[in-house]
């Protein structure tokens, strides 16, 4: 009864002044830091739009389908760069998706634990190799190998298809860029796939095996269908990396703008063009056009990210809906 008679105001004041101020200050500082961190996203978008504005005013949206890049005439357009970006990234996805899914399946379903851990760590290590090192290796090891062996082989079999035409002995090619991007996206996609496949309930897998399915039938009918949307999201995340990779691509692709539909020719992408213009940009319009290019890349990346989020959300919905 004694306690009840103490007025509420006194109870509050038993907290030391320093504690009360400290809590508020600490809350404020950490909230400010969060705002700063998240604000960088907005600042990047804002700064890029502002920087691109002079070029937007001159070229409008025609920038997207105009295909001249001539600093002397002050004419800039991004069409071939956009196409180059899409061709290299989707080409890399075509190669890396089956490989990544297969690696994920190997690590989650086939490999014994003693093999799984080191192999998984090695695949992850591939992700840690800096892109400039992959690019250096691409110039002096991969590109000659492609030009002497891989490209002629593909050309001799599939050369009648226009996309595999061109001179297969070229060293700096779109094809080599695709291979480099494949190498860089595999660790990302495969490690997410592995986690997804490991998350599939063991009872489901054992049920399939118990019904007499082979491992392949189990994978085909139980494992992959139950995480299909997650796999799509993993592939899209890899795609995001491929779209934005600048250094390794610019080292191997040859930085050549006129568009060829054949992948055994030099080409260029948005990110790679940005990377190799860093010393050459002189006029304000050229700088602004480069920033416009960055904006286009950012919009493509953003769309890809939103798509990934949506797919993941649908995937979560499916999982909770099924439970």
């Amino acid at each position, binding site marked *: 009864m004694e306690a009840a008679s103490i007025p509420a105001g006194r109870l509050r004041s038993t907290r030391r002044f320093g504690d009360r101020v400290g809590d508020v200050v600490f809350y404020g500082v950490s909230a400010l830091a969060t705002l700063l961190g998240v604000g*960088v996203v907005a600042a990047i978008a804002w700064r890029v739009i502002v920087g691109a504005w002079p070029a937007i005013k001159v070229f409008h949206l025609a920038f997207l389908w105009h295909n001249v890049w001539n600093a002397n005439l002050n004419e800039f357009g991004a069409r071939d760069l956009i196409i180059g970006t899409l061709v290299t990234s989707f080409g890399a996805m075509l190669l890396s998706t089956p490989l990544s899914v297969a690696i994920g399946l190997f690590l989650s379903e086939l490999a014994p634990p003693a093999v799984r851990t080191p192999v998984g760590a090695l695949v992850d290590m591939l992700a840690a190799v800096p892109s400039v090192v992959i690019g250096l290796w691409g110039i002096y090891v991969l590109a000659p190998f492609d030009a002497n062996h891989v490209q002629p082989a593909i050309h001799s079999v599939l050369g009648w298809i226009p996309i595999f035409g061109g001179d297969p002995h070229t060293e700096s090619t779109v094809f080599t860029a695709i291979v480099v991007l494949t190498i860089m996206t595999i660790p990302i996609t495969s490690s997410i796939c592995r986690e997804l496949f490991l998350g599939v309930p063991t009872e489901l897998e054992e049920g399939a095996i118990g019904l007499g399915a082979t491992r392949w039938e189990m994978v085909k009918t139980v494992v992959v269908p139950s995480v299909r949307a997650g796999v799509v999201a993993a592939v899209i995340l890899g795609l995001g990396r491929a779209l934005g990779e600048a250094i390794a691509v610019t080292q191997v692709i040859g930085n050549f703008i006129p568009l060829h539909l054949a992948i055994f020719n030099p080409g260029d992408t948005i990110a790679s063009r940005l990377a190799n213009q860093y010393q050459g940009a002189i006029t304000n319009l050229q700088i602004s056009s480069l920033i416009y290019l960055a904006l286009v890349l950012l919009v493509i990346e953003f769309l890809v990210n939103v798509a990934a989020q949506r797919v993941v959300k649908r995937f979560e919905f499916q999982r909770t809906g099924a439970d």
Partner: protein
Amino acid sequence: MQPEISLKATGRSRRRMLVNKLFEGSSILAAALAIAVLAVVIWSVGSRGVSAINLDFFLKGPSSSFFGGGGGIAPAFVGSFLLVAIAVAFALPVGVLSAIYVSEFAPAAIGRQVRLWLDVLNGFPSIVIGIFVFALAVKVKVPLLGIGHHQSAVAGGFALSVIMLPLIARSTMEVLRLVPNHLREASYALGVSKWQTVLRVVLPTSFGGILTGTTLAVARAAGETAPLLFTCALAGQVVDWNPTHSVMSLPLTIFEYSESADPSQHAQAWAAAFVLIVFVLVTSLVSRLLLDRSRRKLGLAR
């Protein structure tokens, strides 16, 4: 006498087993391919790089004679160290504080939003981050600070810190979530205020995890080239500790030497790549092991 039953699969089951073998074989092949690529990359960098590594390589600047040869890339080592140190100085406090905010203060809905936007930031192409800093700090004059309007180590370090920030913040959030709640509650029960609980209980408990997350971010930032292209690329060829100057860096040196016409610079590019790859792989491997260990420790404590 009963007829012998053949245990050899025939017809349909034979085909199913073949398909299964094909699947298993191709999975193993895919994993082997990925490891082979890693091995070939490391082997080619190692075998070409080691020959150019000597004491001069670490201690001297690029040789100034026209015919090249000799010299080292000491300025790039110093520059890379400077850039990464600046990046950590920017990114570590902001990253850890925002992780504290999300895990200790913020409502779940805000926490989700912060995570989402940090993931978006993580997905930004690094070249765009370089252009952002270029437009922000390099083009704009900041007369009082003496930075800006020209490329500098501060600008480059800031660009790298934008790369590091989501990595540090996300890994710290993950570790803070693993700190057992009864530790916090015990502290509150003793009458300790929230900020002191965070500083004296939560942070020390998760120190190992934050350290390893930061190390991983350092490994990533040390190898990034694209953010430096527009912010810290036009550098002198001498050792320079001044952060308001543009400095050489390891990844950019590799990038520039790889496209050089001088074969002795190719050898140095391979050597620099070898040093970089050893640094990055060793740091990320060690920090991954440490992360597993601290995670296990926290997991047991719960």
